[in-house]
C-alpha cells in the first residue's frame, strides 16, 4: 500500500485535468477562506504587532509571552469557541453565520492574528536601533517611522504572513467545527482529506494533499517573486 502515494499523485493530476467541478469548488473555498482570513488578520495584526515592536511600555514582556502562547492556540479549541459564539444559543447566534465560509474566515482570522502579530513584532524589533534613530532624526513622525520599519523588515513580515497562510490552509480542526464540512459549501481541502481518510479512500486523500501542497508551492513561489521584485 506504499504506492498509495504514487497513485495519489497520479490521481491528483487526473483530478485536476478532468476539471472536476467539486474539486474546483473545494479549491475555491479553501483559498477564499484562507486568503481572506490571513489578509484580514494581517490588516489587524500588522499594526498591532509592529506597534508593540516599536514602543516600550510596562507589561510588554507579559504581552509578548501571551502572543507567543497564542501563536500555538489549538485550532480545535478556537473552532469550539467560535462555534459557541455563533451557535444559535450563543451570543452571536442571531447572525446565523454558523456553517458558512464567514464563520470559517472568522475562526481562521483569530488563529492567524497572533501568528502575524508575533512575527511582525519580532521583525520590527530586530531592525537595527540605529536605523530607527536615523529615521527619527530625519524628522519622521511615529507613523512615518513605523512605515519605514515595515518596509525595512518586509522580508520577515512576509515570512510571517506565509506561515499564517500555510497554517490556515492546512488547518482542519477549526474549519471543520465552524464550517461543518458541508458539501458544495464549506468543504475545504483539509476537511475533504479527513472525510476521505475516514472513508478509507486514502488514495483520494493523498491526491488532495498533493494538490494542496502543489498549489501552496505555486502561491508561495508567486509571493516570493513578488517580494524579490519589490525589494
Amino acid at each position, binding site marked *: 500500500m506504499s504506492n498509495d502515494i504514487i497513485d495519489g499523485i497520479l490521481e491528483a493530476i487526473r483530478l485536476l485535468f478532468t476539471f472536476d467541478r467539486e474539486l474546483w469548488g473545494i479549491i475555491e473555498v479553501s483559498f477564499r477562506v484562507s486568503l481572506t482570513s490571513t489578509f484580514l488578520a494581517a490588516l489587524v495584526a500588522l499594526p498591532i504587532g509592529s506597534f508593540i515592536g516599536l514602543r516600550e511600555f510596562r507589561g510588554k514582556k507579559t504581552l509578548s509571552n501571551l502572543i507567543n502562547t497564542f501563536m500555538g492556540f489549538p485550532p480545535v479549541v478556537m473552532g469550539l469557541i467560535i462555534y459557541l459564539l455563533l451557535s444559535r444559543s450563543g451570543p452571536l447566534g442571531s447572525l446565523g453565520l454558523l*456553517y458558512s465560509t*464567514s464563520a470559517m474566515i472568522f475562526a481562521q482570522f483569530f488563529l492567524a492574528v497572533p501568528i502575524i502579530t508575533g512575527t511582525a513584532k519580532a521583525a520590527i524589533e530586530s531592525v537595527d536601533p540605529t536605523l530607527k534613530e536615523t529615521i527619527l532624526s530625519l524628522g519622521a513622525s511615529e507613523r512615518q517611522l513605523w512605515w519605514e520599519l515595515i518596509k525595512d523588515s518586509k522580508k520577515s513580515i512576509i515570512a510571517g504572513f506565509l506561515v499564517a497562510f500555510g497554517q490556515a490552509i492546512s488547518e482542519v480542526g477549526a474549519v471543520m467545527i465552524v464550517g461543518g464540512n*458541508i*458539501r458544495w459549501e464549506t468543504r475545504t481541502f483539509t476537511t475533504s482529506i479527513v472525510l476521505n481518510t475516514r472513508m478509507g479512500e486514502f488514495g483520494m486523500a493523498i491526491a488532495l494533499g498533493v494538490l494542496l501542497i502543489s498549489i501552496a508551492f505555486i502561491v508561495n513561489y508567486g509571493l516570493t517573486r513578488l517580494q524579490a521584485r519589490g525589494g
Partner: protein
Amino acid sequence: DILRAQDPKRITLATTTSTYDSGLLDYLLPKFTEQTGIKIRVLSVGTGQAIAYGQRGDADVILVHSRSREDAFVNDSGGQIPYGIHRACVMYNDFLIVGHSSNPANLQLGDNITTVMTKLKLGMTEGHNTTFYSRGDNSGTHSKELSLWSLIAWDPTTAGTDYYKDVGAGMGDTLLITYNDANNRGYTLVDRGTWLTFNDTYTILNILAKSVKGEDILLNPYGVIPVNPVLHPHIKFVSACRFVGFITSPYGQALIDAYRKNNAVLFHACFGTCNETHDCSTTDDEIVIWRPYHSEFAGLSI
C-alpha cells in the same frame, strides 16, 4: 449569509458519520431536493455532537442511532421543554463483530451473542490472545457495545485489562485500527453500513459474529427527530417535517431499501414496521403524525 440561513428552502441535518460516509445521504437527498426544492446541509459528526447540535438549535433535524439518547432528546424530563418532537424510526441495519481471520478467540458464526461476548472476554482476560477495540466515544455503536458487555455482567473499562483498547474515534478509524493490529488478533463491533463500505479494503478482517435469528439485540435502528421549534423559534420546522415525511414515505422507504453499495444492502427501511422486526417501539401516534406528510411524495416511484 444571514438571508440564506433563514431561507426555509434550506435546512440543516446533523447526522452520524455512518449514514453520511456510507453514501446513503448523497443518494437520498437530491431526490428530496428535486421534489421539494429544499436543500439540505449535512453535518456528519459524532452522535453526541449531532445531538448537542440539535439541543443548541444548530440543526433543524437530526438522524442518529442511539435509542436511549434519542428518547432523552424527545422526553420532557422534569417538565423541561423537550429538545425534539416526534421521533420516527426510519431504518435499521445490524451490528457485526469483525476480527482478523486468525480468530484467536475462536468465535463461530452460529454462536449466540452471550457466547460471543464470553469468548471475547476470556480471550482478553485469560488467553491474552484477543484485543478488543472499542469506539469509546459514547456513540450509538459504543453504547451498544457496552450493553453487550453488560449481558455477561462484565465491565471491560474497569476490568483493568490491557487487551481492551478504547480508541476514542469514529467507526472508520476504529476499523482501521483493528485492521492494523500488529498481532493479528483485533476484534471490534461495527455497524453493517460502515463494514460494507470498508470490507474490500480490509480484506484480512472477517465477520466473526453476527445476529443470530430471533436475537434482535444486534440490530441498529436509526431515528430521525425534528428539533423543537418551541425551544428554538428559528428552526425551519415545516421544512424539517417535510424531510421526515420524505424519508418515512413509501417513496423514501423504497429508496432506502434500494440503496446498494458494492452490491450489498446497507439499510433496511422500517418505518411503521420496526416493532415487528425488533424492539424499536414506534408508537401509533408517530405513524399518525407523519402520515399526512407522505402525501407530497405519493405516487413517486424509483
